[in-house]
């Protein structure tokens, strides 16, 4: 079994007592397009760093061309033809395209002087080799994301690469740019260079790759030719299909239909979304899905007062409200848990308590001084209610696991007496166990507290399991409102596939 170009055998990696990888195995054959699939936090990036020599494994073997490579350094990895294109591309925005491209050549030759004519020549060759148009004198910071990615790919190709690892390469690309990228990737493959796509986007994986390895909690859980997989199967492997969930059922109360908690009528955010109408009644969990850039996040932001120039009507419990600032949205009873809770939602070095109370200080300090006793009481109550695993509410949030962090965000909003809860990717980066618990919590909030929940997610399974309705969005419009009966993983996935 050493027909691979690079092979990981039973790799183990431990960080400060936490096992990141355990018995991880992966074989990449020369010239193949391979996909490493796994959720955030599954150990994908650790795999990349081991393959590129940034980390040394604590156990197991790394082989290149069938030979073991103990303690491989990044320089050795590059010398053997392993190139990584990081998510941030690792480019110098303040320098020109030409200098970015030639930098590694100069460094590799251990030059002391900078020859600008040679720099241009090297860059010209690199760009020609990739067969794309790039302005060599443009400053990289001025290029769009797709352009920066081309520079990064061109640079990776220059060094006689045999394997190019791409970390989440399609994240910030439009569908059209993704197609261009895939064309280039196939072109690179035609020259006998292997590609490892590291991604959690199933559709793209199935489209581009020849073989797939699925990783979960630091272990390989499945491997095989792409033909053996479909989206449902990958999802099951990625999330651990053993966690079965009862679908969420919402039955309208008897009598006249209740007033919707949240209703939007003809909501339009110029250039982002158009003419959206939707009503969510107390206790409903409505899923919202669509491709990146479909306008789903823009809708959430508009509801949270972050798109003050929206048109149309927003009603909370039947009363029209005007949401021009986040303060107004919070006052109206809307809570928003953002997509990237780490950068948008939490103050990581601050304590659980401070994070929980971040939006409640105004209520806690009616006379300028914070009511400390009440603050303590509220925090303790929430830590218990949300079952946050911590000895004390003074612990910094960054020391909590992803699942517990997410609970802190939820707790903060519950303290504001929110009536409408908007969740954007509620379990991104959360391990499987916590995921189920968070889902249970969300259901409980809807069911017993009468909240209206709008759940935005890429994770179809998550939506299907937790929502009583799913709305699909595309190019800024609602395309379909699937009722509970029609909601299955297959239907939703199939509909999403038709959007390009």
């Amino acid at each position, binding site marked *: 079994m050493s027909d691979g170009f690079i092979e990981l055998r039973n790799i183990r990696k431990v960080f400060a007592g936490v096992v990141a990888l355990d018995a991880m195995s992966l074989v990449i054959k020369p010239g193949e397009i391979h996909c490493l699939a796994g959720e955030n936090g599954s150990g994908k990036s650790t795999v990349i760093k081991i393959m590129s020599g940034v980390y040394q494994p604590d156990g197991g073997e790394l082989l290149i061309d069938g030979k073991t490579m103990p303690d491989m350094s990044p320089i050795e990895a590059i010398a053997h033809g392993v190139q990584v294109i990081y998510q941030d591309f690792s480019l*110098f925005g303040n320098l020109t395209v030409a200098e970015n491209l030639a930098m590694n050549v100069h460094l590799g030759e251990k030059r002391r002087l*900078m020859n600008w004519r040679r720099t241009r020549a090297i860059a010209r060759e690199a760009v020609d080799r990739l067969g794309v148009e790039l302005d060599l004198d443009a400053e990289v*910071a001025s290029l769009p994301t797709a352009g920066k990615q081309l520079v990064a790919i061109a640079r990776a190709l220059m060094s006689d690469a045999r394997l190019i690892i791409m970390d989440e390469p399609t994240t910030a690309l439009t569908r059209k740019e993704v197609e261009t990228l895939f064309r280039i990737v196939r072109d690179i493959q035609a020259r006998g260079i292997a590609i490892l796509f590291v991604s959690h986007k199933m559709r793209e994986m199935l489209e581009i790759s020849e073989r797939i390895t699925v990783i979960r909690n630091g272990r390989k859980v499945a491997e095989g030719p792409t033909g053996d997989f479909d989206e449902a199967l990958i999802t099951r492997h990625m999330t651990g299909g053993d966690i079965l969930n009862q679908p969420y059922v919402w039955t309208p109360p008897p009598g006249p239909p209740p007033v919707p908690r949240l209703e939007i009528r003809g909501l339009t955010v110029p250039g982002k979304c158009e003419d959206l109408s939707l009503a969510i009644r107390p206790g409903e969990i409505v899923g919202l899905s669509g491709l990146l850039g479909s306008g789903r996040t823009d809708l959430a932001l508009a509801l949270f007062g972050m798109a003050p120039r929206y048109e149309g009507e927003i009603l909370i419990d039947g009363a029209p409200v005007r949401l021009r600032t986040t303060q107004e949205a919070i006052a109206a009873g809307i809570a928003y848990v953002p997509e990237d809770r780490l950068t948008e939602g939490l103050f990581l070095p601050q304590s659980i308590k401070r994070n929980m109370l971040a939006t409640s200080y105004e209520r806690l300090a009616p006379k300028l001084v914070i009511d400390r006793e009440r603050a303590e009481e509220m925090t303790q109550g929430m830590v218990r209610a949300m079952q946050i695993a911590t000895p004390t509410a003074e612990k910094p949030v960054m020391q909590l696991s992803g699942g517990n962090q997410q609970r802190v965000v939820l707790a903060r909003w519950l303290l504001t007496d929110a009536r409408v809860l908007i969740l954007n990717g509620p379990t991104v980066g959360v391990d499987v166990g916590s995921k189920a618990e968070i889902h249970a919590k969300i259901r409980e909030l809807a069911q017993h507290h009468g909240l209206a929940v709008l759940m935005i997610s890429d994770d179809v399974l998550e939506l299907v399991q937790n929502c009583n309705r799913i709305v699909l969005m595309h190019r800024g419009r609602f395309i379909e409102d699937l009722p509970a009966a029609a909601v299955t993983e297959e239907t939703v996935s199939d509909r999403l596939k038709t959007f390009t």
Partner: protein
Amino acid sequence: MALLRRSETVIAGILLLAMVLIGTINPAFWQLDNLFSLMRSNVIIGIMAMGVLLVLISGGIDVSFPAFAVAAMYLTIKGMLALGYNGVVLPLLAATLMGLAFGAVNGFFVYKFRMIPLIVTLGTSAMVRGFLLGVVGTSMININKMPTALIDFARTDVVSVTKADGTTYGLTAMVLIYLGLALAMHLVLRYTMIGRSAYALGGDPEAARRAGFDLRKTIFFIYCVAGALAGFAGLLHSGMIWLANPRDFVGLELDVIAAVVLGGASIFGGRGSVLGTMLGVFMLVMVKNSLIIMRVDTTWQLVVVGLIVIAATALSAWRDRRRAA
């Protein structure tokens, strides 16, 4: 068009406009002796600005160079007096090396402990000044004791003109030293890998590390060069003013940083050029000089310098954000 977009062109344009304006208010501005004295005032600030430029490009900041300059100057002259040595080259070399050693301390803390350069240089600055005044001495060394060789060297003129009333004035040869050092810095920044590594470090430290730059070398180089330039400028300064004052250069860091930022260097790192810096230095010196001619109080000069720092930084921040968009 490309020429118009360059920040140097913009700065040069503003400089010219300011010169015309000042010349209109005060026609004496254009007289040769005023211009010569202006250029003379550029020398010390300009040499120090070259070091600060390098530090700013790498994404750092240095407020310790005035302390290093004064320490290198005072220690060197004390040493010359103690040894009874009267020369130029060796003392300048000694002051430069002393500055370099001080700079290495900055580099050590910035690299080894990944400390914020502002804090490191604030600390070393205070320590060096305190040590100098506490251990070495607080008394000024006046013209009667100053080594004559230094004064004679700093007095050298490139050209000298005799006025109708018989007095002479000239352009100091120290300007040539400044121009030489500026040219050297330009060549280092543009045509050496260590110079490019400073830009890379200032652009994206993580990417620079991944690309394989030896950041230890780069950081030590940057802070050592900044210190060395400060030490050199310090001694040269005492020769030019015939005085070694251990309390000299207080508050100079603001002037120099203002000049460098005015010259288009980004306070966030990654951008800046020697030509722009020279224009920035000239502009700052000219503005301060004009304020003196117009008999504006020194306290108000401070206000103007502060305003220049804020305005120039705001402008460059706005420019960088627009470029990134």
